[in-house]
């Protein structure tokens, strides 16, 4: 069987999650590789969540928020942008392929953008193959 990457999505309630719903309402088809956690705002995302997602075996992580300036909470995603930017740098310097971590601003009206991004991301991750950098090897946790 072909490699099917697992993508952990983290989407803000007001824009990206709603946009993802819209993709469904308009019956757009995209790969079923993304599993989404809903949070109220992209600024809720603690960078440790991203690290954890990779440790749990995510082959890619997709964070979605409102376009900067359109945040439901005004400035939340402006802070989020900095947090996520530095998260990206951390992952990269630690040796994680930074292509596995995507941040996208997807508004509630951009169902098609959501579908396109999931499609594209899934394709990219298939090309990259499984993520074994941070993934916890369950049987090698003991050490002496």
């Amino acid at each position, binding site marked *: 069987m072909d490699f099917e990457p697992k993508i952990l999505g983290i989407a803000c309630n007001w824009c990206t999650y709603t946009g993802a719903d819209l993709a469904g309402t308009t019956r757009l088809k995209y790969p079923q590789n993304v599993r989404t956690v809903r949070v109220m705002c992209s600024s809720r995302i603690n960078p440790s969540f991203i690290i954890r997602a990779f440790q749990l075996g995510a082959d890619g992580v997709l964070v979605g928020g409102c376009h900067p300036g359109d945040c439901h909470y005004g400035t939340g995603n402006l802070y989020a942008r900095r947090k996520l930017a530095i998260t990206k740098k951390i992952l990269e310097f630690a040796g994680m392929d930074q292509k596995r971590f995507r941040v996208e601003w997807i508004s509630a009206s951009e169902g098609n953008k959501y579908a396109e991004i999931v499609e594209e991301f899934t394709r990219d991750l298939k090309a990259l193959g499984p993520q074994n950098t941070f993934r*916890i090897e*369950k049987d090698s*946790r*003991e*050490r*002496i």
Partner: protein
Amino acid sequence: MIGSKGSLNADHCEKEKVVFKKITLEKLGDLVSALKEKGPLYAPVRDGKAVNFQKITKTADVTLDFYNTVFSPKFVFFPQTEDLIRYTLQKEGAQAEPVPIAASPSVILGVRPCDAKSFEIMDRHFLGAGIIDPYWKNRRDNTVVIGYAFDPAAPPDPADFYNTVGIHAADTEGSDVFMVRKDGELLLKGITKKGESLLKGLAVLDAASAQDEAFFDETIRKDRGVKTRFTEITDTAIAAKLVGSFEKQEIWEEMTASCIGCGTCTFVCPTCYCFDINDETLFRKGARKRFWDACMFTDFTLEASGHNPRPRIFQRYRQKVCHKYSYHVTKYGCISCVGCGRCTRSCPVNIDIFSIVEKVANL
């Protein structure tokens, strides 16, 4: 003094049936290979600037050119982490299985006298407190300790204070085999039956001469003269002093003012045995783990209610000193410190535990 209390592992051999061998340093590799065949071998390995005991995979890694390791070899008997139980969460509840206690016969090569002594102090706790810790016991029983004398010609590290706690630079106590370096050779003497039978089974070793034996005894004699520090402390006196000073908060605060509250001193210490037990689960699989804890950490005594009996650093530091030099004396009859100086050397802010003990002794 510690030595006067005797050892729980006392199966010292008779004087006349001494097993005494030697090997040239060039053939250290052969010795290492031979020891490795007996089972897992732990020996000093240089990694960057530091030398530490490691489980040997490559013969050439072993070095005997070191003063002392950064970490004590206690982890051979008491690993930093070990699984006690492994379990799987299921619909009907957890399926758990204890991890079998199985230790193959192993050898630790190159243990300094103070560290060898530390094993005996730890025995009192893990074996002599009324409950026998099977993990410790199993590994202790199956391991041969090859002690290694300090070079009497080299000055001791200023952080060391082993002779002030009654241990000498070439004490054989705690070792099964004791090793002395003579120019390009290693002299190995069997101290216990376990040690002797190990030596007997090592074909790579040559027989040692009477001259060698004289050198061996001379080294031990000379090493008795190696002085680390000059304040003499006695177990019971310091234990009493500490009890008396407990309430003198200001003094303790002042003495420990620079402590930052990390756990380095306890982790490098050969006689710190505190551990925590925690269940750690990922998805549905998990293990009940035992792992080192440090009394210097804030959460060491944190209670579920949120109350912490030792919220401040001076309280935790005082606990560490009192435990080692007072409570341990009361409970096990000796202080729980071998003066190896590791805590002092590793301390990020150069706190010297012995200076604190000295101050208390002189109060």
